């Protein structure tokens, strides 16, 4: 897959084949032999160890990021500048042998810069598609809230449909395809905050937080010299990563766990402290993320603990706190939402589950 991530479809006349090709590609990924779960755990550990050589003391963030990658979701990293958002995204991408592109979002960035553009080739006398930055396995979107809404929506469309349509032709995005977007919650001037509907596209939101004192000291020693990323090499091939993804999909989620996830999400819709609860898409992604996390632990079934530990990152960014708890400040509601989600998780009963007897 690497090296030639773009599949070009001739034109609208053969759109039917294009759809066939889409199905074919997905199938191809599906039939990728699922990796043994013990091997998944070992590979995951290797990736995490690799990433942690450049990011100190952020185990939970790294683990969640890998979970999202395995669950084929997209990740939103929201934090103040300089805490290693981009470093995390890059290190993760470099640990896997696949293509990476980075888009620095600015107010004048155009949708075609992201998706690609058709250029007239004088020699062939026909239009030729020049793929944009989106055509990569891992796309790092830096400061996504600085781009105009138009560009944002172009990116988000690609994220959702995993394909690009330019001038009537549809081009499939490579697999795996994950967008890791970063966003700065503090500096609001000249930015376009993602509306709730678009945040919903991201599987999870994490924030890095400041490192503790020891990690920061250690960082001073290790980061003093050249770029730390230079020392990182891939520990997992693209095919292996796809195998891990397939294995993650095959993880079993019991009825009890699904019911638990649904109860949790429904509780967010009924909570008086929240104006907007989580969507059904959130339920879906919560289960998918939980499966990936179970695979990361080498477990072939999902536990309620997986749901618990992912609830804040997967559900948090989709919610809006009610004005009653928010007062009139609408910024930096993340800690508030985290409290509310934690409380809901604490208050939702865990289903008993199957009992192999009458």
């Amino acid at each position, binding site marked *: 897959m690497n090296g030639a991530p773009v599949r070009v479809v001739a034109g609208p006349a053969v759109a039917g084949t294009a759809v066939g090709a889409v199905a074919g590609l997905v199938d191809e990924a599906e039939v990728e032999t699922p990796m043994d779960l013990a091997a998944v755990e070992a590979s995951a550990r290797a990736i995490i160890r690799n990433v942690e050589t450049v990011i100190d003391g952020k185990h939970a963030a790294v683990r969640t990021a890998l979970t999202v990658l395995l669950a084929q979701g997209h990740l939103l990293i929201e934090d103040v500048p300089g805490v290693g958002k981009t470093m995390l995204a890059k290190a993760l991408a470099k640990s896997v042998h696949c293509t990476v592109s980075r888009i620095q979002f600015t107010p004048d960035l155009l949708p075609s810069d992201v998706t690609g553009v058709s250029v007239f080739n004088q020699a062939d006398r026909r239009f030729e598609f020049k793929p944009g930055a989106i055509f990569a396995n891992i796309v790092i979107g830096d400061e996504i809230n600085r781009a105009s809404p138009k560009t944002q929506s172009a990116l988000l469309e690609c994220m959702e449909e995993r394909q690009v349509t330019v001038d009537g032709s549809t081009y499939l995005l490579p697999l795996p395809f994950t967008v890791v977007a970063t966003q700065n919650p503090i500096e609001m001037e000249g930015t376009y905050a993602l509306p709730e509907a678009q945040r919903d596209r991201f599987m999870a939101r994490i924030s890095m*937080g400041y490192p503790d004192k020891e990690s920061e000291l250690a960082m001073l020693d290790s980061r003093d010299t050249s770029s730390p990323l230079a020392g990182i090499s891939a520990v997992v091939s693209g095919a292996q990563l796809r195998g891990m993804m397939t294995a993650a999909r095959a993880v079993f989620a019991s009825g009890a766990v699904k019911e638990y996830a649904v109860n949790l999400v429904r509780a967010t819709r009924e909570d008086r402290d929240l104006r907007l609860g989580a969507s059904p898409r959130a339920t879906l992604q919560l289960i998918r993320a939980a499966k990936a996390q179970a695979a990361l632990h080498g477990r072939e079934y999902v536990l309620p*603990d997986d749901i618990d530990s992912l609830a804040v990152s997967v559900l948090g960014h989709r919610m809006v706190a009610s004005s009653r708890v928010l007062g009139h400040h609408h*910024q930096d509601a993340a*800690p508030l939402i985290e409290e509310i989600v934690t409380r809901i998780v604490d*208050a939702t009963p*865990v289903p008993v589950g199957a*009992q192999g007897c009458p």
Partner: protein
Amino acid sequence: MSRPEAATRRRRPFRAEWPVTGALLLLLLVANGALGALLQSTTWWWLMAFVSATVLLGLAGLRRAGLAESLAPVAGFGILLATLTLLFGGGTGLLWLVPSLETLARFGRLVDSGMESIQQQGTPADPVPGILLLLCAGAGVIAMMMHLLAITLRVPALAGLPALVPVAVPGLIVDGGADPLSLVLTAIAFLILLRVEVRVRRTREAENPPAGPHAPRVVGPVRRRGPGPLWGAMVVGSIGIVGALLLSVATPAVPGGGFAGTGHVGTLLFGSGVTPLINLGQDLRRPQSSAALHYRTSASPPPYLKLLTLDNFVGATWMARVEPSRPNENVEDIALPQGLSSQVATRETTTQIVIDGVAARWLPTPFAPKKVTGLVGDWYWDRSTSTIASANSITRGQQYTVTALELAPTPEQLRAAGTRYPVGIRRNLDLPVNRPAIIDQTARDVTSGAISPYDAAVALQTYLRGGEFSYDTDAPVAEGYDGGGVDVVGKFLEVKRGYCVHFASAMAVMARSVGIPARIAIGYLPGSRSTSYIEGRDRFNVDAHDLHAWPELYFGGIGWLAFEPTPGRGTVPAYTRATDAQVPLGGEVGGLSTAAPRNADPGAQNPSDGRRAATSPSGGSDATRNLTAGLAAVLIVLMLPGGARALRRQGRRRRVRAGPGSAGWAWDELVDTAVDHGVRVRDTETPRELVARLELLPGLVSPTAGDHVAVLRRLLVAAERQRFGRPGAATPGEAPAGLAADLDQVTRAIHAGASWPVRIRAIVLPASLRRPSRVARNGTLPADA
């Protein structure tokens, strides 16, 4: 002298004693009111009024019925005892009135708890039953003495002396003493008593002149109407009282020169860089205390006023976290405090504060502020600490109104608070690594057996307020361990003497060490109600000696709650007293002590039918046979719960060995065993979280029992696989026999590690019987069978 004549002579004066008795009662009731400076609510007054009235009227009635004068004290004592038995005996007395041995024992306990509570509580105190008993007994004794002096000995002027006792007590305890209003009223009541007595005696003498030379007499002409010498006495008395009042209002202004312009006395130096804890101690030790601020409030009891929060360890010392200023967080509209959810009941109070002498960057406000109006300068609000501070302004001279939320969480909500904390809260669990070992050790010892963070917190508070520790502002300096760092806390826990800083720091550090997020709040105690009518009776004055530090602990879904571990200062918040059930008069003896029960287990709160049956049949005539039958019945009833539990256990073990679903049955048995041994199992908890708690049980952590934990985890994984795994998937290494052995090992270890009362309860009265069985619970999940 013929007999009928003698009868008239004996009767008539007695009938005339009713007005004197009424005047005595009035005097006593008014004097009792002076205790209002020390106590909360008004129940105590009504009870004291009831006892006083019963004793005085009862004695007067007996006297009217012809009781010999010499017997009056005995009769009075009898009446008092009967009244107290009725009020506080809890039905243990014969016919509710005659005290039995049990009643006396109960009184002994009540008196002990009352004395202890008096030592522990600050003013105004919460009148717990023990204190009420002491008050009522005191009122009764005073009533008897008044009767003796005024009626038996006929010296009503001296009857005012016993009435002075309740009036004088507040003066010994609080600075301002009894409030002037009750002093004036008492004086007026005393004058009324004198007047009534004189009238009565005049009437009596007019109708029936005294016979003997020693009989008391009133000299002067008998006049029915118009002002007499007594009116003159009243006028003179009134002038004296008013003069004394004016003087008392004027004098406090003299020392300290506490009016405008001398703001340097007692000024706070709370900069962000100075260690506020040391400053606080210095302020407390300063002999002269100057006015800090005054306020009027709608809150009852008056609120603590918080200045700043210390939540950050820098090295071994507490420091305030310096947050960047956020101009958007306007103090006129503040979001809900951290962690508070809509389920918790809140009450809005308003407090108008005027700063006299405080000069600080932090604003004293009641917790949790919701809205502050009237400030000068730029003030910003910090959500995580709920404090209000300014970058460019100080507090001096500010006048502002704070709307605050009073939290009133129920004990159920507090017990249900989870142990999962958001990231922003988790930093309040950090502790310096090289802290004295005594901290962790003490914290573990004190909280062992606490079933929830809330119970652990209450246990810590009770431990620090208990008799072992004493309040002392000088000892720490003399012995060189002032301040609030962890090493100081270590020393403090050994010496057990210190002031609020040490108590607050010790509680916060110990709470953190047992996993409850905690921090220290610094601010002012509610101060004292103004005694001056010129300032107004609704005004509270706070001076530098009211500076205080107290811990705040975090509970999920509720947020930060203040605790009061310092003995003799401040008031214990209502939600931390919830565990000592408010005993209604005449109720069970169960929760008398102000101390929270450390081992509050759900099972113990429901006494078994058996126990009740054992105490009630005692009045039977056919004693022995009934007793045998009763005992047998009691034994059978006592054995019923344990037997049912044993049957259930056998059934489950059979199922574990037979399969299918062994792991599920083994898990059920494990959970029930844990519940029997006092572990509180919540249905919002995943198996993994439960196991993480079970691993801390004494039977499983003991170093000799290394592999118990491994076995426990094996049971957990098997149960998880069965409950949440793919049905019918291969289950390697789960031989039912092995599971049964694992189960036996773990349950035996849990049982062996429990204390003997817990073990006996687990056998006789297993708490798990009240949990629905698995099959019933599983019925709600038909999809998964």
